[in-house]
């Protein structure tokens, strides 16, 4: 039980704790903060695995952009509506039951498979920024370009939604 394993367990526990708190917290702001915690723990896990690129992007994009946006919106809206008083929907029991079943089934599959994935002989790929980027843009440049198209589409769609919404409202 060395430091690595302990840290790994610590971050894993953090992620799980964040997830559970998300389900339990009443105020959406607290839910958002729990999610940020969870994401930061995950970034820690990625860093421990040596996948630095992903860890950085997790913090930058996911926490820095997505969750901040989320927090802004929560601050903007009036969250003291019926969903504040009664957190859980009518599908509470079926939801929990199916969640438990899903975990059971998937966990069983994972346990059966065991460590079926053959570990690599040695880390042939570096997940540091420069080698990763070079290799990324050499082999997967098309996917990269397509994602920029997707982002443009998303921007256009966002404008259209807002504009249309404005017209409906005004």
């Amino acid at each position, binding site marked *: 039980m060395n430091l690595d394993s302990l840290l790994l367990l610590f971050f894993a526990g953090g992620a799980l704790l964040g997830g559970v708190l998300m389900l339990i917290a009443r105020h959406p702001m607290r839910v958002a903060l729990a999610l940020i915690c969870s994401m930061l723990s995950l970034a820690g896990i990625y860093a421990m695995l040596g996948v630095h690129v992903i860890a950085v992007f997790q913090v930058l994009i996911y926490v820095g952009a997505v969750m901040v946006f989320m927090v802004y919106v929560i601050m903007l809206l009036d969250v003291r509506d019926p969903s504040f008083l009664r957190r859980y*929907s*009518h599908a509470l029991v*079926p939801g929990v039951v199916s969640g438990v079943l*899903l975990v059971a089934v998937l966990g069983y599959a994972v346990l059966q498979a065991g460590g079926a994935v053959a570990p690599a002989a040695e880390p042939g790929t570096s997940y540091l920024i420069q080698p990763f980027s070079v290799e990324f843009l050499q082999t997967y440049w098309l996917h990269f370009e397509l994602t920029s198209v997707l982002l443009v589409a998303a921007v256009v769609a966002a404008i259209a939604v807002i504009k249309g919404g404005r017209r409906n409202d005004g």
Partner: protein
Amino acid sequence: MNLLTVIVVLPLLGFLLNGLVGARIGKSFVSAVGCGLPILAFLAAARSLLLLQAGGGEQPLIEVAYTWATIGDRTFDIAFYFDRLSAVMALIVTGVGSLIHIYSTGYMQDDASYARYFAYLNLFLFFMLLLVLGRSLLVCFVGWEGVGLASYLLIGFWFEDPAKAAAGKKAFVTNRIGDAGFLLGMFLLYHTLGTFEMDRINAAFMGPVLPAVSASLVGILLFIGATGKSAQIPLHVWLPDAMAGPTPVSALIHAATMVTAGVYLVARLNGIYQHAPEASHVIAVVGVMTAFFAATIAIVQTDIKKVLAYSTISQLGFMFVALGVGAYGVAVFHLYTHAFFKACLFLGAGSVIHAMSGEQDIRRMGGLAKRIPITFVTFAVATAAIAGIPPLAGFFSKDEILWFAFASESGGSTLLWAVASFTALMTAFYMFRLLWLTFLTPSRMSHATEHHVHESPLSMTGVLIVLAVLSAIGGFFSIPHFLEPLLPMPVAHHELEHFEKPLVVFSVVLGLAGLAAAILVYGKGLARGDALAARFPRLHRLLSGKYFVDELYQAMLGRPLNWISDRIFLGVGDRFLIDGSLHGMVALAQRTAGRLSRVETGSLQFYVALAVAGAIGCLAWMWRHG
């Protein structure tokens, strides 16, 4: 030469022409076609008879017109068979038929549906000829059903009146009940003998080895069919109601031809009946009971046509008595003479009704003898014939029947003779009653009617004269002798032979006694008759109500069947079971849909839950099965 087919097809042609185009072309065309074709058929029948006699008279003419069906290795043909019996029947049908057609041109002159009438009349002739000329029971049955159909169409000719239409329906339904027996008999014969052809059936029964079927059973089944068609008890109820049709129709169908189909059937299949003493006995008993029963009712009837209707039933009973004691030829003889005098009587009644502008109640007639003399004379001749006054035709045939009823070794008995003789007495009585009340008593007519009384046109009176002459002299041609090679005369008890002459005298006495009684009671009018009726009120009511047979049938059969149809078949079967199951299925579908649609809650999260459940199921299943 397909002479027999020609005989049969000519009236069919008449039906098609008159039915399809007759109404458009005009009355003269319809009359020409409607009367001309039956006359041609009569000539063809006469020619066939000459051909038959030229060949010695024993060898029948057989023509196969068409192969109807071939099933496996069995063929069913439409074939025609002409022997002496067929000759007699065909000549009566076409001869008397043609005369009635000619009469109808006068009687139905003012009717709107002139063409339809002649079309149906020709159709009837076609089917009747199929019946009498057919070789196999199948063809005979087609004709049997067909004359029933034509009878229904013609009885209900003025169908706008619902009562008349109902009478037609009653005739058809009652016939059908008899036909069930006929069919069963047919099937039994086919099952045992493998053939429907009547000459072969007769040969099989007369042959050395009797077929393995109860002749009495077959005989009774076929007789049930004859009961329906020939209006014997208990299926006689349709004939009096059938008087709702035009009078020439009553003359043709319900006096001369259709109702005699039953007699023809039994006479034709005499081979079976000669070996079926029980069936023959049943026939004789039913015949004499019907004769007696109908005669008692005829005594109190007040409608001129109803008297004649019951008289027909009674005379048919006589024919069946003759058949029952084995005197087949004598029955056909009586059929032949009856055709003449009954047709004459009915047509005479039609002439009277025509003269009286539609009045049919004899209580409102009287004194017509001087005003419509030709009708009176012909009617009187025919009445005398039916009463059995010598030397008119009816005397010969009725006398032979009474003799064989008394003396035949195959079923004759004193009791049978006694009842038949009493019925003959009643026949004379009610017929002369009719004659006196209609023609000879002082007039009881209403003033308006009396003013319009006129003799009928030549087309009607001419036919009456011809038929009266035939009723007078027709008896001199001895049909039993003519048919003897085919229909052997029964053997009379040897020791009773010396009764023959006295019985003849006795039957003449009966006829005259009937005449005397009629003059005594009704000679001056209704007064004495009514007084007599007042002295026996209950008997009078029973007879006037026709023994309440119709009411009995209605109560016993009509109402229960109606109740069953209404409550059980309609109420339970149709509404509850069929409609109910359909409604039930609809309701089931609706309720199921209603319950299943509760899945559509509109709540997205619920849908997600369902999707996850499905996914879990899939995963679990995948992992269990490899």
